């Protein structure tokens, strides 16, 4: 029987491989935008992150057969809400993992301390021995998954892949049991290979900002003629852009650390430059012109970052729109109109730019 361990992290902060090496299937809690947040709202005011409130609602109301829950540090919603989960969520095992803010040598040393502690706690809690071999196997399996996602990701720019298809594949990657996942991703690769070419009536864009956790928002972009072919989201490239180093010898925990400090960094980390570097590289690498920057209402880390990020991208000559989004699956016609106008303007600018060359 599949044993699941659920986790709540603000981006991609949970070291899944330790759970996998303990024989558990990691399940990323994403909340449910279709359900009202009333259960969580008894404990959290409405001006606190709605995605995080929805995740708490999922934990409070779900009948999940989770072996336990890990909350991994990212933004204030993780550390400040942990205690509320501890008081109100019915679970046998709630664990706090501190993924450091910085990427300095001191932070890396501490990361190792935290990983070792988590490994020890998991060994005791689940009565297993987490050997290096098991960790390397988990790393290999993770890389196999990430490799397939990379393959899917590159198809976005050349095939007709609606945003929702890409989003759903990424959600599967963080929620589905690993073994089923591999075959499902293989099927998706085959399916996508047979798709038509990138549609002429769509424009390729890069999507950045708060993590998108529900498919309807991705549909809105498609409705406006915008195809996400690059991104730096956790339900997206942040999760698979890098593989976990797999040297012939060494400590698997060091590889996990190295992986975490080199993935596309979220706005919750310091220093902020690597996040922008990743975006700039992606734009150049994929020869893109348009950026959709968005932040979920009350998501502070991305709201803070947006001004600098948007200005820096604009200075580079890219067409950028920034949006604040509600946590809602409802189709927003005015948003769609704005996006269409942006697309039209950006496309015209690009044509003009090229005709001047």
């Amino acid at each position, binding site marked *: 029987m599949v044993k699941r361990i659920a986790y709540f992290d603000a981006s991609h902060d949970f070291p899944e491989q330790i759970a996998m090496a303990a024989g558990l299937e990691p399940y990323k809690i994403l909340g449910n935008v279709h359900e009202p947040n009333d259960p969580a709202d008894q404990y959290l005011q409405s001006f606190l992150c709605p995605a995080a409130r929805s995740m708490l609602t999922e934990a409070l109301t779900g009948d999940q057969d989770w072996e336990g829950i890990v909350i991994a540090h990212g933004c*204030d919603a993780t550390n400040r809400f942990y*205690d*509320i989960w501890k*008081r109100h969520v019915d679970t046998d095992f709630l664990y706090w993992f501190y993924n450091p*803010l910085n990427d300095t040598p001191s932070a890396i*040393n501490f990361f190792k301390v935290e990983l070792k502690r988590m490994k020890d706690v998991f060994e005791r809690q689940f009565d297993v021995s987490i050997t290096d071999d098991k960790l390397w196997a988990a790393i290999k399996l993770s890389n196999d998954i990430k490799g397939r996602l990379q393959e899917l990701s590159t198809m976005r720019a050349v095939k007709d892949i609606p945003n929702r298809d890409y989003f759903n594949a990424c959600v599967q990657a963080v929620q589905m049991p690993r073994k089923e996942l591999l075959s499902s991703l293989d099927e998706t690769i085959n399916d996508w290979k047979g798709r038509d070419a990138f549609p002429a009536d769509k424009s390729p864009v890069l999507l950045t900002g708060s993590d998108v956790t529900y498919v309807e928002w991705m549909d809105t972009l498609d409705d406006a003629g915008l195809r996400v072919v690059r991104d730096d989201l956790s339900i997206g490239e942040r999760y698979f852009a890098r593989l976990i180093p797999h040297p012939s010898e060494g400590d698997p925990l060091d590889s996990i650390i190295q992986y975490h400090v080199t993935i596309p960094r979220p706005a919750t980390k310091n220093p902020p430059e690597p996040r922008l570097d990743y975006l700039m590289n992606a734009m150049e690498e994929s020869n893109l012109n348009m950026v959709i920057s968005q932040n979920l209402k009350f998501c502070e880390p991305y709201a803070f970052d*947006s*001004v600098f990020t948007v200005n820096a991208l604009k200075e580079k000559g890219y067409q950028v729109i920034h949006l*604040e989004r509600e946590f809602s699956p409802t189709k927003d016609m005015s948003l769609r109109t704005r996006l269409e106008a942006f697309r039209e303007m950006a496309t015209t600018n690009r044509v003009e730019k090229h005709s001047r060359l």
Partner: protein
Amino acid sequence: MSGSMETKNASPERVRVRNLPSTGKLKGIMMRYMLKSKIVELFRRKSAWVTAGFPVEICYVYGVHPLHPENSACISGARKYSLELIEHAESLGFSRDLCSYFKTNVGATEKGIKLKQGGIGKPTFMGSTNTICDTHVKWFQIQARRMEVPYFGFDIPSAVAGTGDARMEEYIDYVVAQFYDFFDFMEDLTGKKITEKKFQEVLRKSDKLCELWHEIYKYRKDVPTPVAFQDTLAAIFPMVLLPGLDVGIKYYQALLKDIKERVAEGKGAMPPGKEKYRLIFEGIPMWYRIKFFHELANYGAVVTYEPYTFSFGPRKRLGLPLDESLRDFARLMIDVPYNYSLEKRIEYFEQVIDEYNIDGVILHSNMSCRPSCSGMLDLKKSIQRDKGIPVWVMDCDQNDPRSYAEGPMKNRMESFIELLEQNKE
């Protein structure tokens, strides 16, 4: 409390809260500090922007002049400039939902307002921590990039509920390692090496301030209280910015002398017989609307304890070797009232309620300060259940006057007072 309450009482007669005579001295201290800030800027001496929760003492060890954007922002708020500055920051694209201190600071630096309006000079570097909020990190990342100065961010692991001793020691190891990183950073910047003697001297002065602060707080247990929030809200300034100097120590000694005299005469901060309800106020006050506390006083309600001002004064252990001192310091950065776990926060409040004879609690549910508001609803329920006293979760903002609606606030204050009255009966 419900949100739709009618005004039931006519405005009460005005009650004057008496400031301690020595409170007036603070103005001179602040003026001298501002003058020094100006000189530092003009002569390009070393200075740093720091936030609450940052070990400002280390600046004094290296002879770096500390500047405090939160403090400057509250000056802008108190002098009624904050709205204009916040709106300016919003016009640059910063969201309405971001911390109003941050936006006040962005507006202040963009517009180059005067120090006495809450302006602040460009520093040599910026230093903050994530111990209280993400904002402190994001704020300085943004401003350091804009001003092209280096930034040092302390990463302080969160001691969530149930953090055991062994794990706490690991957290401390990590923070101590960052102290040494910070010393390297400071050496590169100032060309000076840390001397243990100077470190101990600064620590001693810092602790002396805190010792006096604790003594002031001890007297606040008296009924009537000799000191109200009207004094303490500004009096924290030396702990925030002058912990390495004697000037704050002298000021606190003068305050204590006043307090002792008041107590000896049996007098309180409120006129005789007027202290009816003793309150805790949790959170940052609304700087643009300090009148709120005077209005409370008109109903006989006096704020007798504020975790916010108490948090600035943790006692340090003295006479330890450097490494041990740093461990102690690290512990204080991880575990002080403003970042207590929910369990500990509830325990802390309930203890204060008993020790300070508290009749009611106002929890500032501050739109700017999401981290401090997290857990507030549990805190409210626990206090009501365990202590049986009224708790008002007050929705507002510390520096953005747009969030303060006069009519509804007045109604809610009156309803709260009625609850206090009924509860006393």
